[in-house]
């Protein structure tokens, strides 16, 4: 991937969408006579509207920039002209009701949607100004720059050690010392080292659910990715395991940029620095987590985060 494609990329200092959205202007007045939900009305009626992107984002430098990105599953449009930047070194949460396209957006970033037949995209996504959807992109290389953690823990049917070093192995790394070092580092990073250090040769499937998920996180960070994509990483876990993962996300965010999809409003409030609210394939509001949860611009967002709709 070359940076020569940056001619079409966003400017470095600001997040493109944020810059344009900074006047908080809305095409449709957000509080109209129908009792409040003008944006949702607009979405439902297919009218254009401008998402409320807070000014605070303008101060951040984006690592992932989504630009006018739309995605179709065959004929069904699943994402509508998304414009957003993911701030470098921060935790960004994607929230929204089921089927709003959070996971689709997340999977578009590392092109995991390529595996589904009939997926078609318009617009582009940039990682550090490198386009993701240019024809000459090496998808394998692209995916190596990102780690991904899934909804349900999915360790490979192999030993804990092999699970963690999988990304290095497929890169052709054979030196035992390098692998062991990377394994320990990743397991420490995922706060599971002390629990598994004596049984690295056991199957990854012999761990408990929470441990498995942390193992998956270790696997995702083993190759030192730039961005960590997490797709509802706690939804299959009990509260105590969830707590541990959430603590872990806090620790990880000091080193990596994290983009997390969650259904759990409290979780978004606890772990993330920024939150994006999506609805029916559109970005609705995007800003600092504290702002989104306490002083959202749009009534819809307030209604959603307080659990009154969605």
């Amino acid at each position: 991937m070359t940076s020569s494609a940056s001619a079409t990329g966003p400017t470095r200092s600001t997040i493109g969408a944020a810059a344009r959205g900074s006047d908080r202007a809305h095409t449709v007045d957000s509080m109209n006579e129908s009792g409040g939900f003008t944006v949702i009305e607009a979405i439902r009626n297919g009218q254009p509207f401008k998402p409320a992107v807070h000014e605070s984002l303008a101060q951040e430098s984006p690592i992932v920039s989504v630009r006018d990105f739309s995605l179709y599953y065959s004929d069904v449009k699943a994402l509508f002209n998304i414009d957003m930047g993911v701030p470098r070194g921060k935790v960004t949460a994607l929230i929204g009701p089921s089927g709003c396209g959070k996971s689709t957006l997340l999977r578009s970033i590392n092109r995991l949607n390529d595996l589904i037949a009939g997926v078609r995209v318009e617009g582009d996504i940039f990682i550090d100004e490198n386009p993701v959807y240019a024809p000459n992109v090496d998808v394998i290389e692209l995916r190596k720059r990102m780690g991904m953690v899934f909804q349900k823990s999915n360790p490979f049917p192999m030993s804990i050690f092999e699970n963690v070093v999988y990304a290095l192995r497929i890169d052709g790394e054979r030196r035992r010392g390098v692998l062991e070092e990377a394994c320990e580092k990743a397991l420490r990073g995922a706060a599971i080292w002390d629990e598994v250090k004596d049984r690295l040769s056991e199957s990854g499937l012999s761990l408990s659910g929470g441990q498995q998920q942390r193992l998956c996180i270790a696997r995702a960070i083993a190759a030192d990715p730039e961005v960590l994509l997490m797709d509802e990483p706690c939804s299959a876990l009990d509260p105590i395991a969830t707590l541990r993962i959430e603590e872990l996300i806090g620790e990880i965010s000091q080193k990596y940029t994290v983009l997390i999809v969650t259904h759990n409003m409290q979780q978004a409030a606890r772990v993330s620095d920024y939150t994006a609210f999506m609805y029916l394939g559109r970005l609705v509001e995007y800003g600092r987590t504290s702002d989104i949860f306490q002083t959202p611009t749009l009534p819809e967002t307030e209604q959603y985060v307080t659990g009154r709709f969605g």
Partner: protein
Amino acid sequence: MVWLTGLSLVVAMSMIIGLLAIVFLNGVVTFWPRQLDLVEMTGGDSLLGVAVREEAYSASPGKRIEIESRVASGELPADVMTEDGRLVRRLYMVGNKEVLPQPFRWVDIADIASIEHPVDATLYERMAWGAWIGKPEAVLLVQQKRVPVQGEGEGPALEGTTQTRWGERRFERDQLEFAPDEDGTVLVRERVFAAEGTGEARRLFNELHPEAAKRRAVIEHIKKHDIGRVNLGLEQARLRQREAELRRDDIIVRERARLDRALEAHERGRLSEARLAAARERFDRRRAELDAAVEAAQAERERTDALLDAEYKEILVEIATIEEYDDQYRVLIRDVTTGNFAPLAQTRPDEPLRISQVVRAITGNDLTFGQRVGVYFSRWWEFVSEDPREANTEGGVFPVIFGTVMMTILLSIAVVPLGVIAALYLREYAKQGAVTSVVRIAVNNLAGVPSIVYGVFGLGFFCYTVGRYIDAGPTNPWSPGMWFIGLGGTVVVVVGAILSQMFSKPVPGKALKLRHKLLGWSTFALWFGSVALVVTLVATTPFFKGFFRAGLPTATFGTKGILWSSLTLALLTLPVVIVATEEAISAVPRSLREASFGCGASKWQTIRRIVLPRAAPGIMTGMILAMARGAGEVAPLMLVGAVKLAPELPFEPHFPFFHLERSFMHLGFHIYDLGFQSPDSEAARPFVWTTTLLLILIVALLNLTAIAFRARLRRRFVSGAF
């Protein structure tokens, strides 16, 4: 409903268990040494034999009425008849084929006056002519020697005693010469009674038998290996000479065509007289060279033949020496019915049996339980480790076991990679749609094609087409010019296919255009054409003359063989493997693939590191099913490889080890052969059971091995799941 389902399970289970139990019981009891009955019949007749089985039959009315009245008068016990008035008869194995009209004899229970179990009755299993049941009378030392005559005009002593290593023993002599030579001796045939009486004879027989058996084994080994080696050498020398002749013919044809072209050119005036002469000279020179080469090969062959002939004669002398020694030791066993003794051969009723002709002597009536167990296992060991004798009704089935196992292994080696790769393409790479569905349905239907159809296909395609090609090269080769044009065309098509494939790949995330669809179809068509062209090119190459044409018209690969059998059965079991593998692959969770792709793995890396290991137990299941099906299949093998008696194993302990072109023996076919093709069905009957038992055991063993292996894989890959 629960009753219905339960009932059908019970019916199914009882049928399977019943079948297995019948095979097991009959197979297990076959080799148990049974008592020898001396049966005296009311008619004054008698027999010595082993009771095989009893049955009720409808006798003639006259006999029936007579026996009914004797039963009614209490003269006969009631159990000589069944309640519905049929007579009960018993089958005795009496052996002694040379002197008795039938080796098996039915006896009416009503006719039996008495049954005794004489301790001196013995059953001798012989190398040829089946069992001999009788009473051992003597062990003899027979030899021809020159002895002095007793006086002028008199013969030698024809009876007397002599000192032997067992002490003073009686002898008898037959005079073979009547005119004594100058030192006063004549040639006689002397029989020394080294042991007389049943007990003595048995004891000495047991003492001498191991040595005799060893001599027999040595002779067999020499006949099989040394003479085999000589014959192989002769055959190879013949083939080398034939090869030289064929090569000469090939080159002469080419040279003559060249000369003809030169002649033609000369006639048209385009070639000078001098150059024509040069061409003539070249032709003559080449022919002379080739003739010399053929002559050299011929001379070489004659030299080899002479050497091998000398060796052959030496071997014959060696055999004769051992046989001459072996010929001395005889045993006299008398048949109780006819009073004849067991002969050396059917044509030599005057000469008693050699000790070395006996495989095993079983003194059926005074064996202890331990000895019976010993005989039982020694018979089983012989069964699994020896070659068959007497039209497969005696001896062992070692080559049969070997052939079955080897064929099954070859079959799995052929079918598993092919099936797995095909299933991988179908499930992982092919675009799911109408075409893949049709392929899938076709594959499933292949499993339903009668196996004999595969046999016919295997014979026609593998043996007669591929095999003949390997033997003799293409039947209708193209001319070299034509062939190279074809080669060029093929290269063009292959390059076209590659290009078309490159451009038919759609960019992920972009809409599929009509161009991609068209290119996709053209890729398919071009690859198909490439394969067809390559096959045509291989089948018509003028540069390949076959690997074994010197041996023609005797086909090497162009006939039945273990390789073709394995490939035919691989084809037969391919659907099983494809279906099982496809299911195993599709059962690999999507989340695992996504995680692998998410780590930056390519498709092939994901398949190799995640999908295949995870699917391995399922693939093993497919292999187990294929092996079970393949090992038990008989019908196609009758056409493509299994034979009644294969003189050589398809494996030899010296280079080149595997002889995949050889036909082989197979347990399934062996069962059919014993049961329905045997000249002596009664004698073959016990072997049908034991062979069936063995086949079931071997299939079970192969399966258990595979299952154990699969269980290990499963433990490794799927432990401690949620």
